């Protein structure tokens, strides 16, 4: 059985003042129907760019998909026409963003914005679309939805706005929903509610979810599988249980070992000493080498590839040492 969404050897480059940099390098991951794929990694490692590539929304210029393939339901997206991509955004793939405060258009009511998404893809009139929008607002847990539908975004809290974004995203029953750090900008108390809502939505709509987050608690609760990214590459890819209980890559171990076993819920990714090297300074070796306690000679010469060295796919030369 082939996966619902398959990303294979995806390469995305950006033109910058340092010349062309590679933001994503042979990124592969897949999502099966109805499951949740967690994507974790420090800021700047390419999570959002991966998501935007699927949506066909890489800002271009300066960015472009320079190689690889993205298949949704077997249909190749990297070569699809702009019109085809537009038709697919909504009914096939939808996305919610990190910044609920700025992701809604300030001059239109939230009801209108949801209704617009519906009318773009379904043959219904405005009145019906607005009715559907109210039903969706109700579905995502917004109290007195008829009144709220007439509100402008600035009249709603961040959590409410993210609920509106979710309502809009699922309005055309997408097969895959990408949630790019949906709770990062929200209050801790609201974060859990949004994750609960995503869980419910998945159960009711049978939608596959790509959950990009720093919240390992949410990953352990929601994700079936996890892809760990570092500096534009996937460095570990396995079931959520495997990654959380037996992280292999030194970077993944750094992330997960720091999380206290109890009360994981509201812990973010732990700090690992050092920083991600900027893209234009990436050499030929492992991008984590400067921060790695298990570095070998080979690590600075050769890029480690994602392969089954041991327990599950990991990109690391020192995997044997790392396990010691």
């Amino acid at each position, binding site marked *: 059985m082939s996966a619902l969404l398959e990303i294979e050897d995806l390469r995305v480059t950006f033109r910058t003042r340092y010349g062309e940099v590679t933001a994503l390098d042979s990124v592969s991951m897949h999502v099966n129907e109805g499951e949740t794929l967690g994507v974790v990694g420090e800021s700047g490692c390419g999570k959002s760019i991966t998501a935007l590539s699927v949506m066909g929304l890489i800002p271009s210029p300066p960015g472009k998909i320079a190689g690889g393939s993205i298949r949704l339901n077997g249909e190749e997206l990297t070569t699809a026409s*702009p019109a085809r991509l537009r038709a697919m*955004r909504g009914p096939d793939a939808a996305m919610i963003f990190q910044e609920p405060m700025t*992701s*809604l*258009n300030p001059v239109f009511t939230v009801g209108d914005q949801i209704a617009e998404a519906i009318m*773009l893809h379904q043959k219904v009139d405005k009145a019906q679309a607005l009715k559907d929008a109210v039903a969706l607002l109700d579905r995502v847990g917004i109290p007195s939805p008829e009144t709220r539908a007439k509100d*402008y975004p600035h009249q709603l809290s961040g959590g409410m706005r993210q609920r509106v974004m979710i309502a809009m995203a699922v309005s055309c029953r997408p097969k895959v929903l990408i949630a790019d750090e949906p709770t990062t900008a929200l209050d801790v108390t609201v974060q859990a509610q949004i994750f609960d809502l995503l869980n419910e939505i998945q159960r009711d709509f049978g939608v596959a979810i790509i959950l990009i987050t720093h919240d390992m608690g949410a990953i352990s609760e929601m994700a079936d599988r996890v892809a760990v990214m570092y500096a534009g590459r996937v460095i570990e890819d396995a079931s959520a249980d495997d990654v959380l209980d037996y992280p292999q890559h030194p970077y993944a171990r750094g992330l997960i070992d720091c999380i206290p076993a109890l009360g994981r819920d509201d812990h973010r990714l732990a700090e690992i000493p050092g920083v991600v090297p900027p893209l234009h300074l990436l050499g030929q070796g492992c991008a984590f080498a400067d921060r790695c306690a298990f570095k070998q000679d080979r690590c600075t010469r050769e890029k480690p590839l994602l392969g089954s060295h041991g327990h599950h796919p990991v990109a690391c030369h020192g995997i044997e040492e790392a396990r010691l």
Partner: protein
Amino acid sequence: MNTSYILRRLFYGLLLMLGVVVLNFLLIRLAPGDPAVVIAGEMGGATEEMLESIREEYGLNKPVLTQLGIYIANVAQFDLGESFFFNQPVTTLIGHRIGPTILLVITAQLLSIVLGVFLGVIAARKPNGPMSAFVSVFATIGYAVPVFWTGIMLIILFASVVPIFPVEGMQSVKLRDAGFFVKALDVLHHLILPAFTLAIIYLAQYARLSRASMLEVLGSDYIRTARAKGASEGSVLFKHALRNAALPILTVAGLQFGNLISGALLVETVFNWPGMGRLAFDSILRRDYPTIMGVLFFASFMVVVANILTDLSYRLADPRLRGR
């Protein structure tokens, strides 16, 4: 939008007009010589009875504050005195000419906004494209070239090279007995050159402003959201982006209105347009003070009204400001 705001805004407008009236009053008092002679017009060669009746009407024998009171009371009843050159009340004189000026100014304003914004939006679509370069060059030229020069060049062009537009006046003499529709078309025909001359400076400014404003808006998160739900490029540009980019344009449009009216003075003179500007120009040469003051009063009145309307429409256009 609440009533108390509108009332407050109207009150400020009234205060501003009072300031203009006081300024007008001071203008006469500060002019050298006998105010009665000034009012009668220095070219008039007024008789002693005439001066006496002026002193009577303006209360020139009474204390200055009483004179101011009388003057304000007169203006409040729209009595702006008498032009001794025309031997007519100033309000009657202006009443005949304010229509053509309003027609010219509003046409120029609409022309510059609609064309300018359209150019700016097109340019913003490709910030490095040829259209963008054209807008920049055009904006610089349009800004640098004086109105009367543009006017004279257009007159030369259309008077001799391609005589398709009339270059003088507002109506053709030979159509004096034509029906309303024909007359209206005739006025429109006469309107094209002066309106375009007046519009061109502001057109260039609006093009540059809307390009900048659009570029900023196009980078915002809600534009990405619009694309993510499958909106077409046209809807992204002209609905989602322009509605937001229009807000600063609206502010500038309100501020420009005053400049537009003073620009109309020059354009009316160049094209012999029978409006208030032409009257002001002639009256300044004749030192017909009551008429000059009348023009000043009505021009200020138009600016104040335009500013109030701009302010209110700004609040209507931006839901974040409503109800404040």
